[in-house]
């Protein structure tokens, strides 16, 4: 009985985790290598979801929706990098915060102008409808697909980071960007590629999340902050750290929300549990972050850099 309740929640948690990883992977590299605070990363996630919803409405094809989301976000990401962000790398973090905060306000409003205030829905693709039996528990196929895609991207990211020349440059850049530049690598190009890559992953996360959430203005803001928690826990600039931290945060958040109120009900009176349960559950990942910081300010899986 307990397992049949617990396992779906665990899977939900892992699935939230891989979505967070898709966002965190790009963002942590931007933080780590360019030392750039990008609050507009959640905006790309939102745009990805909107692009997908629009493309689906026109073509009726989920595959094209994915391509529209990822491609569109890469284009927007590169344009953003060229127009505004590249001018800010050498400034201090406060300017980064200001500029990307302005971009968030701008894109939220633009999305409201283009797509209107009502939420959009993106249906689950036909071939992923229905549920799969897993250890005697029936679980939606689409959510399994999210897990699969997330793990696939994680594998590809590991391969890219550890086995390719680009990955080597990225890793070197996250430790000492000036030195990499001095050795003759075109850091500007590397930054642009990285930013586009991160934007594409954010778009992918957006389109994959769209069928389970509703596509609406501001959906990126909330997920951005959770992503920041993931990055802080994982260690800034570390992709593998982001992966583990994303899974931890996803599972802790989901399991906490599902079971903490029940647990409190066993320990305290019903009134207290009903009031404190949801509050405590929503605080859980932040408390986790605070504990990690108190013990290891550099995060759980830091890179070699500072």
């Amino acid at each position, binding site marked *: 009985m307990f397992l049949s309740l617990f396992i779906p929640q665990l899977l939900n948690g892992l699935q939230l985790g891989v979505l967070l990883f898709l966002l965190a992977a790009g963002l942590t590299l931007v*933080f780590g290598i360019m*030392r750039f*605070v990008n609050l507009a990363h959640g905006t790309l996630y939102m745009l990805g979801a909107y692009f997908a919803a629009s493309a689906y409405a026109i073509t009726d094809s989920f595959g094209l929706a994915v391509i529209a989301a990822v491609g569109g976000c890469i284009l927007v990401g590169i344009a953003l990098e060229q127009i*505004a962000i590249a*001018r*800010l790398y050498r*400034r*201090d*973090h*406060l*300017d*980064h*915060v*200001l*500029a990307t*905060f*302005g*971009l*968030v*306000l*701008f*894109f*939220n*409003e*633009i999305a*409201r*102008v283009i797509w209107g205030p009502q939420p959009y829905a993106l249906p689950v693709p036909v071939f992923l409808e229905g549920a799969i039996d897993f250890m005697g528990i029936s679980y939606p196929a689409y959510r399994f697909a999210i897990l699969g895609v997330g793990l696939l991207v994680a594998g590809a990211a590991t391969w890219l980071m550890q086995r390719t020349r680009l990955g080597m440059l990225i890793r070197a850049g996250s430790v000492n960007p000036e030195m990499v530049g001095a050795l003759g690598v075109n850091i500007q190009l590397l930054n642009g590629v990285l930013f586009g890559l991160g934007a594409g992953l954010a778009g992918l996360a957006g389109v994959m999340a769209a069928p389970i959430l509703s596509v609406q203005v501001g959906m990126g*803001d909330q997920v951005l*902050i959770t992503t*920041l*928690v993931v*990055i*802080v826990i994982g260690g*800034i600039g570390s992709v593998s750290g982001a992966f583990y931290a994303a899974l931890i945060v996803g599972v802790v958040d989901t399991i906490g929300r599902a079971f903490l109120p029940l647990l409190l009900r066993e320990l305290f009176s019903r009134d207290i549990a009903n*009031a404190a349960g*949801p*509050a405590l*559950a*929503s*605080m859980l990942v*932040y*408390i986790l*972050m*605070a504990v990690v*910081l*108190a013990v290891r*300010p550099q995060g759980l899986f830091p890179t070699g850099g500072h």
Partner: protein
Amino acid sequence: MQAATDWRRAGVVLPALLMLGLAAVPFVAHYLDEPFYVSFIARMIVYAVAATALNIALGFGGMVSLGHALFLGVGAYSVALPAFYGIDNGVVHLLITLISCAVLGLVTGAISLRTSGIAFIMITLAFAQMGYFVFVSLKHYGGDDGVVITNTSQLGGFNLGQPDTLYAVALLILLLALGWTARLRVSAFGMVVRGAKQNARRTSAIGFTTRRYQLTAYVISAMLTGVAGMLLANLNGFASPNSLSWVVSGDLIVMVVLGGMGSVAGPLLGALSFLGLEEGLKAVTEHWMAIFGPLIVVIALLGKGGIVGVLTRWDQRSVRLNSTASIAPTKSGEAAQ
């Protein structure tokens, strides 16, 4: 020469005139029979107090806190929650505000200051978000929708729920806060905090326990922000999790930077122009944020000490013109950073 003296003081004269103008607002508004303006300008004053508070951490200490909405919201709920149970004693509200913000500031500040740079920004943001969700999940007190405050703060026979009274109290607090930060800025404490902003390691090397100074500045900043929140709750007669939203934290930063970080009058000028601009754009289009957002980007790209920086450069240029000094660009200290 007469003109030069006037210009040299532009950075001082303008804020002083502004304060005088603010003092006249309620009288003019009632004379014109437009009491709406009292509440509208009162909101500007309250945000100026909050921006002044943030400036202590951000402008003096260089601590880029993207989570000051936490203290604004906690200040607001320090009125709303006692009022919910019928307690309308303003002193009690104030004490709850100050104590809760001090404790929160101490705990979150101590954890956040273990890091610096990017991590500090993200952590302060995360703590504010945590507070946001706590108040959202308190369904008993309205949750998402917020809670209406019927028992506004009664302070020494005055009711802060009354717009004119609130206006007077807020303006007095702003005046005190400005005067106090002007002293704080050049005090020994202020010097250490500002030194730590420029070079924390060197400040430590001189023999100061830098982090303790920074933490103190952070806590002071949190408490004053809480007071602004308390005023805001009385002004609106309402407290909701929205005042803890991260957009509010961002707005406060924009106000400080727009006005001029690290200067005394900057937050006042910033808050007034920010909210004035917002209101002006709202009158033009419903989608004002589509204009306001890029404006913030431009402010960040220009980033030269904000309005106070412009005034200072103006003053210096007129001094130079009169003394026919070199035209080499001068740095206006803190503001030029």
